[in-house]
């Protein structure tokens, strides 16, 4: 199914930020904004909620810590007890470095894998570039056109009155 988008092209980030605010305040839903560099405060004006990735990191880290401790206690204490350096079989201080490393490893991998899954990022992914200039020196604001609902002419005026230097239409093949 094809989707149609109206693209507002901006060349100034301050104008863009006010435009986003005004357009969203007017009740128009913005599909996404593409920018060549991270713009401070754009998450807030776009109403993007904070990422929940840190929660994943915490629980992945907790898993890694538990796994490391369980592994070492089971191996060194029960499966094949060995006396090393005259220490008890289960000598916690000597387990700490491995525990630390596995905690970091699990939380890092957990975050990366979760990020790939959530953002559906995979080698076969097809990326629709709305306007190639958004990788150079322009900001591109995409608004989805719903057949029969969206008034394209009004949207055009709205974008232009909010500082868009150009308004284009683009059809995206899903």
């Amino acid at each position, binding site marked *: 199914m094809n989707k149609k988008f109206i693209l507002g092209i901006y060349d100034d980030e301050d104008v863009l930020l006010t435009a986003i605010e005004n357009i969203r305040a007017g009740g128009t839903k913005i599909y996404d904004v593409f920018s060549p560099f991270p713009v*401070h405060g754009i998450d807030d004006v776009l109403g993007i909620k*904070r990422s929940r990735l*840190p929660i994943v990191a*915490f629980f992945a880290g907790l898993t890694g810590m538990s796994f490391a401790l369980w592994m070492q206690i089971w191996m060194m204490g029960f499966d094949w007890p060995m006396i090393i*350096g005259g220490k008890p079989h289960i000598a916690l201080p*000597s387990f700490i470095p491995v525990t630390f490393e596995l905690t970091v490893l699990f939380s890092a991998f957990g975050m990366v894998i979760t990020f790939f899954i959530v953002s559906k990022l995979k080698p076969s992914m097809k990326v629709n570039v709305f306007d190639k200039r958004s990788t150079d020196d322009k900001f591109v604001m995409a608004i989805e056109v719903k057949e029969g609902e969206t008034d394209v002419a009004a949207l055009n005026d709205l974008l232009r009155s909010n500082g868009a230097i150009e308004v284009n239409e683009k059809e995206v093949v899903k």
Partner: protein
Amino acid sequence: MTEERLIISRKTNNKFFLMIAVGVVLLIAGIIFMAAGGGAGHGEAAGHEPASWSKRLFVNLWLNNVYFTGIALIGTFFVAVQYVAYAGWSVLIKRVALALNYFLPIGAGVMLIVFLFGGHDIFHWTHDYLYDINDDRYDPIIAGKSGYLNTAFFLIRMVVYFALWIWFSMWLRKEAFNEDLNGGTNYYHKSIRISAIFLVIFGITSSTAAWDWVLSIDTHWFSTMFGWYVFASWWVSGLAAITLTVIILKQNGYLKMVNANHLHDLGKFVFAFSIFWTYIWFSQFLLYWYANMPEEVIYFTERLSGNNGQYAWIFFANLIVNFVFPFLVLMTRDAKRQMIMLKIVTIAILIGHWFDFYLMMMPGTLRTDAGIGFIEIGTALVFLGVFLLAFTKGLTKASLVPVNHPFLEESVHHHV
């Protein structure tokens, strides 16, 4: 940008004086109590003479002085780091750190006096008989260290450290205050050069000062991690002190332009360096514990099972208060942006690291006679009161906002 001048009311000053007065009263009560024989009831070990009240007093003075001097010194260190890193975010809170070092001259005086009068009580190595080969008590190990550990060189080092620290603190302060008056970027560039030199000096002196003032208490023992360890403890306490002061000033209507973003960065600093301290702590502990060599592991034995095990609870509380608590509480972003959370954690860290220094000094000096009594609380209160008097006086000396700092604008719009 407008100037912001801190006004310390008579009422606030009286509170500090009251703190000192209460401390003195507790101290006197504690001394009378001990002199009358009430406080020294654990002399049960054969041939063990309980430590006198004067020894306990000197050790406490030393403990608090090293702790507060460290925090004062961190003020200058923090500012120097910000200059050298070309940091923009911290401009609004720089003056708080710069005022911490007003305690340094007091710390220098107290340290000199305590060493001259109580040196024998604190440092075993100061006794002449250890170096006399004809004496029964001759100690070849300590005698072998006499090239470095001797009273004259110790005093020279102490004077040099303080002279350098105070000189550089005053120099940075002078540049900052002149910048307020005259503007321009010359003062800023000059401050960067001063800071760079100071950081080199600090890197060496903070380490050697830690050996002199803390490590040499346990004269036979040695640790290559020790300079780092004391630095880490000072650094995280200093960061906690800066954060806490910023919050208190903000809650009293000052530092209007400081917002959650600046607190967030301070919170990250406190969070990160409480982990750093733990890393150093563990790096030191693990190797000694693992190798288990008597002359090395004695340090930890004294703090765990030795001395009737009386230090064991502090040993573990140290890790819980200074690592587990800040780690779990400050982990989320929201916690680092909330004043109440930061306040709880920084106060815990400040108390926790006082106990960290307590644990470094008491087992080597008072052994089984240490405790937490009137003398400990009294001395700590007196020092806190004096420190706050010097610190707040320093804060009133100039505008809280460095009005002509080239990165002020960046700091005002700081966003994380």
